[in-house]
């Protein structure tokens, strides 16, 4: 299945590896931060609401 990359195999494979890794890291970082901030905001809003009721 693997295509014959010849003498440039290293260059081609490493650029795919590096690029895909960078993209995956960026996506994971964005998603985890999005989740964390969303959760934190919800807790702050909840606290604010409870304080308002008191």
């Amino acid at each position, binding site marked *: *299945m693997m*295509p*014959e*990359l*010849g*003498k*440039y*195999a290293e*260059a*081609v494979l*490493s*650029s*795919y590896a*590096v*690029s895909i890794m*960078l*993209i995956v890291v*960026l*996506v994971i970082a*964005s*998603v985890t*931060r*999005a989740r964390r*901030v*969303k959760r*934190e*905001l919800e807790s*702050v*809003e909840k*606290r*604010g609401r409870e*304080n308002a009721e008191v």
Partner: protein
Amino acid sequence: MASIWQYANPRKFIETTDRILPWVAGSSLMALVVGLVWGFFFTPDDYRQGSTVKIIYLHVPSALMAINGWIMMLVASLIWIVRRHHVSALAARAAAPVGATMTVIALVTGAIWGQPMWGTWWAWDPRLTSFLILFLFYLGYMALWAAIENDDTAADLTSVLCLVGSVFAVLSRYAVNFWNQGLHQGASLSLDKEENVADVFYHPLLLCIAGFVLLFVALVFLRTQTEIRARRMRALLARERLG
């Protein structure tokens, strides 16, 4: 017809992007997978460059998005300066790390590609150099956002920096061209000059570009949502402290 500015409302923005984000992300993933698999497994080697031509599917789209990312930030900054929509400023902030990552991908793939083609990892070729400078601009822009506590102040300052930086980035591009004529091939892709890139490479490349564009949009939507929430949280916390 409703005005486009209604999406400048933070809540409306989050609602709308929540609805379309899965579609954008999904189609981005699909375009990337199909494009890259097509390009990697099912295209022939170039008669001159051998298999390294496969790097084009990463190099060209990331380079395009590196520049388009900055242009998007510039437009968002202008919208903030003129109309003062908070979402716009936050979108510019959200786009910067994505654009910077694209610049890094373009630089790294360029260097890896350059090694077998030019016999050196790094050549002070005008285009590579311009991208290095662009990367520095991204770094400075992000550092300025991070350094300032007040969100509105940060938005104002980074907008002006983005504006001034854009002028100097264009200036640098010309200066660098003047300084070194370079090894890069001419524009390898434009719609009316298809002969530069043979058809076999062209179609998967288009798909990859579409994938990168959609990926950029999806990430900017997601990160802008995050910035909006983070900002609201900071505002709520500031109010709590105030009592």
